[in-house]
């Protein structure tokens, strides 16, 4: 039982780490697409992982991201 709890904690921490680093950004995007766009008639085409990442990285670096 204890072990199960620990495993769950580790899983949760891993989840947070992935979210923080952007490791799961593509999965997030797919989910967003399925939730908000897939049902509509003029749904935009789903990007491939590579295309999405290219776009995501560029949009992440617009504006002030780091300071002193």
């Amino acid at each position, binding site marked *: 039982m204890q072990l199960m709890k620990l495993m769950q904690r580790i899983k949760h921490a891993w989840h947070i780490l992935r*979210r923080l*680093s*952007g*490791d799961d950004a593509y999965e997030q*995007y797919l989910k967003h697409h399925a939730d908000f766009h897939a049902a509509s008639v003029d749904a935009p085409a789903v990007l491939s*992982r590579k295309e999405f990442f290219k776009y*995501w990285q*560029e949009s992440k*670096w617009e504006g002030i991201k780091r300071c*002193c």
Partner: protein
Amino acid sequence: MNKNLQFITWLAVGLLGLFALSSIALNRGESINALWLITAAVCIYALAYRFYAAWIAAKVLMVDETRATPAERLDNGRDYMPTNKWVVFGHHFAAIAGPGPLVGPTLAAQFGYLPGTLWILIGAVLGGAVQDMVTLFFSTRRDGRSLGQMARDEIGVIGGTAALIGTFLIMIILIAVLGLVVVNAMKHSPWATSTVAATIPIAMFIGIYMRNIRPGRVLESSAIGVALLLLSVFAGGWIDHSQTLRVLFDHDGLPLAYAIIVYGFAAAVLPVWLLLAPRDYLSTYMKLGTIMLLAVAIIILRPEIHMPAVTQFVDGTGPIFGGKLFPFVFITIACGAISGFHALISSGTTPKLLANERDIRMIGYGAMLLESFVAIMAMIAATVLEPGVFFAINSPAGVVGKEAIDAVAKINSWGFAVTVEQMNQLAKDMGESTLFARTGGAPSLAVGMASIFGSAFGKHLLALWYHFAIMFEAIFILTTLDAGTRVGRFMLQDMLGNFNKKLGETSYTPSVILTSAIVVAGWGYFLYIGVIDPNGGVNILWPLFGIANQMLAAIALCVATAILVKSGKLKYAWVTGLPLFWLVIITSTAAYEKIMSDDVRVGFFAAANDLSTKLGAGVLPADKAAVAPQLIFNQHLDAYLTLFFVLVLWLVIADMLNVCVRNCLKKPVLPLSEVAYSATRLS
């Protein structure tokens, strides 16, 4: 019962904090344990967060949990996106915490550990964290609008333009001084230079890996990158020991400065995915990892602080930078206590990610407290060194003399014990040829960190720890340099776009090259002057950066105060008005002294006049006479730049006061630009 327990707990925290604070403030003995600083800091942060920040959130800002945030209303799955509060906290902290809180306290340690520590604690709790939190709140209520836009909407065109110009100039000065810090750490150090150089191809390799080999696998790529960086620290040691290879990386300051200038230009025009983004990943992990390691090491080791509480240099004769305790300790420690730059992050990316307004206290106020804690650790790392060693590393050759024997004699004459043998042994332990006059704060911080890590995790690895610390500082200094140059480029393109539409396009290559070159030339100039300056350059550039950063903070607080008054919360306007008042006093006094002082180590004009008199009389040695005209020109330029900063600040204040007074007299002012209420649907 539960309430009573809570009361007792908080009372205990308060008493412990008070006890720790009085121990560090009243101690006049030989040395004090660093754990007292940590205890005082943690207790003060806890109390401030639990009571002051909660009160501001509830009563002053009236944070509304039921209100939909811009992330929810404008959710587009990209920049606007409701995000878990810990994730937002991580992004926000990674964005605000740069090299500033490490360098500032190290330099300010020349006054002793006490003044800097008190300012870091009080400044953060009443100033910096308040600024970050209210800016985040007001931007969240305005769809995540930037500080410049809010200034324009709420105060007027003058405020908006001032914020824009202020941001651009502060960026130029900041990059120059950070570049100088890296140059001083690499000067005649093949180990440091080769390790720092290796970070560039490593970042590029990770960039290609992340984009083409394993697209989007961010964690996997970063793990490989971090492993390669650690390897580069080892490899630097091998290069240093090889007689044929070490000469390739053994350089004077000037060639290193040119290399950084070329690198900065390349980084600004290359696509982000190749260099900037992967470098940023690596630097963020390095930064978080090393800071945690330092905290753990300080807690395990509980080092003694050897620096006196207050040194004689409060009278303005300090070797690291000239100027009295007031106002210069408040200028030197900007980040860590209050940093205007944070207002740009708090009004940029972060408000677009907030899922609920109730997270504002933790993210705005909490992240700044953590940054302040980093500054406290930097203060500890600087003050655990023997004061004689600290001053030997940080005093420029122009002040203590070029020869080791002269420098040691001078430092001994101040009453701080240090010997040439001791410094030689230390340099040998750290794998360096010399540690004298390594100004800029990075080397002394690295020695402090290496000695803390060395005692906690093994002494025989001192040289590795030292170069690890240098690499860690260099990698995120270079990230700030890349990112800052790019931001400067975007801002310049935006401004030029008003005159020529084509120049405003961020993807138009001639415009990219032109604007990048202008920005790089701007900071490259200050970097060049800093390197040829025999007094080390840091003593000129760092105060200039401090004044600029505090000016930006004052602008952010002006915007916040104006909004509070306009929302009918005049009785709470002191929450932002008080830190604003203090910032205006310190920046104005510092600027006045930098311009008007007769002391050649403080006043820009005094220094310029002194130098031209000496040049005219022919008493300067040939090498100094050769650079004197450039230094004189630069001192004049710095004086006018300082004057400009203060004028901009007073202009914004006058504008803000005008808005407040008009509002109180019920005369028309610009309307509040807050977006109307809509209820949240998120659970």
